[in-house]
């Protein structure tokens, strides 16, 4: 009998340029509310899984899990750090989930953490640009992360007629919801013209097509069904299924550039594990590191046919009132994208959505209480899809 796993406590720091805190203090900002939410303390936790990418790169510490554990009172718990690039947070959730499912532990803490603003922007671009295949695609060619997704954008535009305006619509929508989310890095709405007139980063992607460089942390307390009962948790949010997949390190070895195959496979695996169909999902967070990524995600996780992603955003189907509201926290685009924290923060948001605890203006209408988090690592190098149910 496979054990059930629930999210019983959540916390999320303010996202943004957080020069006011070091990594330990930033972590504390999400762990404390997660503990208070669950009614536990650090010494109750058997296992801490921390998702983070930038240790020794974006920030100065090499062993963030150890520092987080000491600072938040978990020393003695089992510790590890997960890396799956921008999907490290989901990988951390998967790891803690697996530990509970297997009966290894009953209570685990997941932290997603990134501190990206302690170094200058060109160096950050350099480090992220190396996150593909340094030897073959960075060393001589200076790829950047926006450039990787721009390759997909030009290919998608050529094949399906997707336009720069379509991409801009994603940014406009996500800024609209970001402006309603006090935790978001960007707190203001923007227009299509703002996006189109912003400086080009890697054509066709402009500044406002790109998620920002962000500091942030997010935390979840995960528990077995027995522990949920023991603690008397009112509204556990159950992890109903997780699917994961991957693609080649070299972009040149990919089948095509109009979608991310691991998103297709990971989502199919998650739907199967959860026993649901895509049309049963009522609210989702998808990996909008760049505007084109959100349009491809619609298609890849089965919300529409391949090539119809732009139509979904044009018709407002991914806003509240549409077929399936997406990225109601502002997404990576407006909430911010602290790489290792993002996957955990998606689940923070969806837990709040399923509990109907978010700001009223950005609360998804729910009936079946099923949510989906789609978290891509690298340029589709990794993908995790997690389905949550109340």
């Amino acid at each position: 009998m496979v054990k059930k796993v629930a999210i019983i406590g959540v916390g999320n720091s303010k996202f943004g340029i957080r020069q006011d805190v070091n990594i330990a203090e930033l972590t504390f900002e999400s762990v404390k509310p997660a503990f208070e939410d669950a009614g536990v303390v650090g010494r109750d936790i058997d296992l801490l899984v921390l998702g983070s990418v930038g240790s020794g790169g974006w920030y100065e510490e090499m062993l963030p899990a150890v520092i987080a554990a000491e600072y938040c009172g978990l020393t003695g718990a089992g510790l590890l750090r997960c890396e799956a690039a921008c999907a490290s947070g989901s990988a951390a959730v998967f790891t803690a989930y697996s530990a509970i499912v297997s009966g290894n532990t009953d209570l685990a803490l997941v932290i997603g953490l990134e501190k990206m603003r302690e170094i200058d922007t060109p160096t950050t671009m350099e480090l992220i640009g190396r996150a593909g295949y340094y030897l073959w695609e960075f060393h001589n060619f200076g790829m950047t992360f926006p450039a990787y997704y721009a390759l997909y954008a030009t290919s998608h535009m050529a094949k399906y007629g997707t336009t720069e305006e379509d991409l801009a619509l994603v940014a406009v929508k996500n800024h609209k919801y970001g402006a309603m989310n006090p935790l978001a890095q960007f707190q203001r709405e923007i227009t299509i013209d703002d996006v189109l007139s912003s400086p080009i980063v890697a054509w066709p992607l402009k500044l406002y097509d790109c998620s920002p460089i962000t500091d942030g942390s997010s935390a979840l307390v995960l528990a077995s069904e027995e522990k949920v009962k023991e603690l008397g948790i009112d509204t556990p949010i159950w992890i109903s299924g997780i699917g994961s997949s991957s693609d080649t390190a070299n972009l040149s070895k990919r089948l095509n550039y109009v979608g991310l195959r691991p998103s297709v496979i990971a989502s199919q695996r998650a739907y199967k594990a959860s026993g649901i169909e895509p049309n049963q999902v009522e609210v989702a967070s998808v990996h909008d590191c760049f505007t084109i990524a959100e349009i491809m995600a619609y298609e890849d996780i089965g919300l529409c046919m391949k090539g119809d992603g732009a139509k979904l955003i044009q018709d407002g189907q991914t806003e509240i009132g549409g077929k399936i509201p997406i990225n109601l926290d502002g997404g990576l685009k407006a909430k911010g994208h602290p790489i290792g924290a993002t996957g955990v923060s998606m689940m923070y948001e969806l837990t709040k959505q399923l509990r109907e605890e978010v700001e009223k203006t950005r609360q998804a209408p729910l009936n079946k209480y099923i949510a989906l988090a789609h978290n891509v690592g690298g340029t589709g190098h990794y993908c995790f899809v997690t389905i949550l149910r109340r």
Partner: protein
Amino acid sequence: MGVSMPTFKSRPITLIYDIPNSKTLQFWDGLKEGKVYATKCKKCGKATFPPVADCSDCLSSEMEWFELKGEAEIEAFTHIIIRPSSFQQEKPYTVVIGRLNDGIKILTWLKGSKLSAVKVGMKAKLVVRSNSEGEPIYMFVPI
């Protein structure tokens, strides 16, 4: 939560890696002669670029080298304006993924084309040219 909070500087660090290439030396030497080599597995026949010393399909380590030639069709492109720190000295550059006639795909720069002329579906030729540091690299040029 502004950008002018008190901070102090960490000790600096410089990392330069010595990347081994003894097993793919023919590729690197080939570039110096203006040739771009790929590998083909002697056991299962799988052709691979970038070149490899070991076959991911049949796990054989017996590879033969062959030269990449012919026309490519551009499948994707971008013009990189905001460059990483180690490419700050370069002018903005165009990166493409080109598919050669034999199906092998290559991610590299496209040079010698007006930006507005770069399109998905355009034809290009694989050549070896020196980069700004004087090192030979493979790239596409328009046909």
